[in-house]
């Protein structure tokens, strides 16, 4: 046995299990020219998820790119911490959110929906989508800008799983109009 091999096995026997395992993996990886791994990486497909807490869920409907840019700026200025804001919009100007830290949730606009799914109701689609978003986020306040679709209102006045009267609207929805 060559000296490097002797040193290798000496280390493998004496190192704590975790370190020995790491050393073995590294040596096998290096010796194979990066082609082999001693221990295949663990493949995980499950996600432990706790809904992010948002200070503000901002909804902007049928607004121009310029208006959306202004809304995002105002909201971020008001809230301070961008990671506690999510903006829901049917605008495809998603680049506005890049590197802002603010989350964006796109809802396909009415025109797209009606041209691709003419037999299906857009308002119900919006309601389902907004309901789903309320399951993703824990929302303190909601503010809306632009032409609010009925589906959004339906969602705000009550989730499908609970009666509408159980929801305190004064706490959930704050309506605002665009400038």
């Amino acid at each position, binding site marked *: 046995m060559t000296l490097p091999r002797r040193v290798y096995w000496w280390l493998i026997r004496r190192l704590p299990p975790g370190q020995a395992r790491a050393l073995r993996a590294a040596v096998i990886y290096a010796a194979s020219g*990066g082609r082999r791994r001693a221990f295949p990486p663990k493949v995980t497909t499950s*996600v*432990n998820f706790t809904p*992010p807490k948002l200070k503000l869920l901002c909804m902007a409907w049928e607004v121009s790119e310029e208006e959306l840019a202004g809304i995002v700026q105002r909201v971020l200025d008001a809230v301070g911490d961008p990671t506690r804001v999510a903006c829901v919009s049917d605008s495809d100007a998603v*680049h506005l959110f890049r590197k802002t*830290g603010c989350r964006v949730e796109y809802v396909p606009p009415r025109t797209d*929906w009606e041209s691709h799914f003419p037999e299906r109701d857009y308002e119900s689609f919006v309601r389902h989508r907004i309901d789903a978003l309320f399951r*993703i986020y824990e929302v303190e306040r909601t503010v809306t800008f632009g032409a609010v679709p009925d589906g959004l209102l339906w969602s705000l006045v009550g989730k499908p799983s609970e009666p509408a009267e159980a929801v305190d609207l004064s706490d959930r929805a704050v309506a605002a109009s665009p400038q």
Partner: protein
Amino acid sequence: MSRVLFITSNGFGLGHVTRCMAIARRLPDDVEPIVFTLSEALPIVRREGFFAEYFPSRDQEAESANHWNGRLSRRVTAALEEYDPAVVIFDGTYPYRGMLEALRRPPRRKLLWVRRGMWKAGQGTVNLQFAPFFDTVVEPGEFASAADSGLTVESKEGVVAVAPILYCDDDDLLERAEAERELGLSPGRLNVLMQPGWENEVFSPSARLCIERLERESTVQMMVAESPLQARSVPLPEGISKVSTYPLSKVYRAFDFSICGAGYNIFHELIAYGLPGLFVPNAGTPLDDQVARARYAQEAGVGRSWESKTEQELEDHLSWFLDDDRRAAMARRARDLSFENGAEAAARLIAELSTPEVEIVVRDPA
């Protein structure tokens, strides 16, 4: 009418989303494609007439991987419930945990992974572990496959190989005179298309070097491609003619050669349409082996590879492109080695899978 859902990775590029649209636009009328993209190319997808959903790539500074995957899982689940696609096609090199979690839930749908090859040697071991989650892996063809030393070369189980996937067919390209008119180029000159996306977000010194050198050529008429994505657009020097159209390949016939990166799409488009390329490979990509691809193009005689980015080597390469005979030989060689468009075959496969009577063997992901 059945539906298929394309999920494309990519924060701000066009590669994955273009490949998906290339396949989607060739689906038969009774299969409706929906594009769920992580790319800021959302407006382009809509403009091309597809129904699109968008979910942003992870902002590493703002959100943990766990949270992002959790949100993605819920959004994909909502899309599956809303559109009930028969087939889900993922185009990307790394299937996201959140996406897989949503796809694992019943009802079981047919899952395809569009996974291009040409990975850097030894890289992507983790990525390959995800193959068993998919029923089929569709591998878009690679012109430089002889130089491919990546892990996908030996991983062929469950893989369906198709020819290189391109957005446009030859017939979609404008004739030279028409393309020149559309771009405002004067006829009878040597037209050069520069696509300076090989270094992200900067107009690199190497690109500037090319421009300065070519400006000294009186016959040359140069145009710089500006990314149609706002986030990718690079501030260009003053006085440069710009083109920002999608798909750019539509106007390729206006040009005599191109200076560009060696990413999958540009590389295969140039060869397929017989446009000689001076490839400037981006060696910094995590998985895509652009250097090997560019070198292969030079060996095959369809282009040149400018890896050093030195002025001296540039001079040598440009002597090939500025010489009419040598340039014509490269174009001829590319046309001789050209290939069919694999998007058609991929679309056929997806259409077959989207019919309820087609059963495929589902492998145990364990």
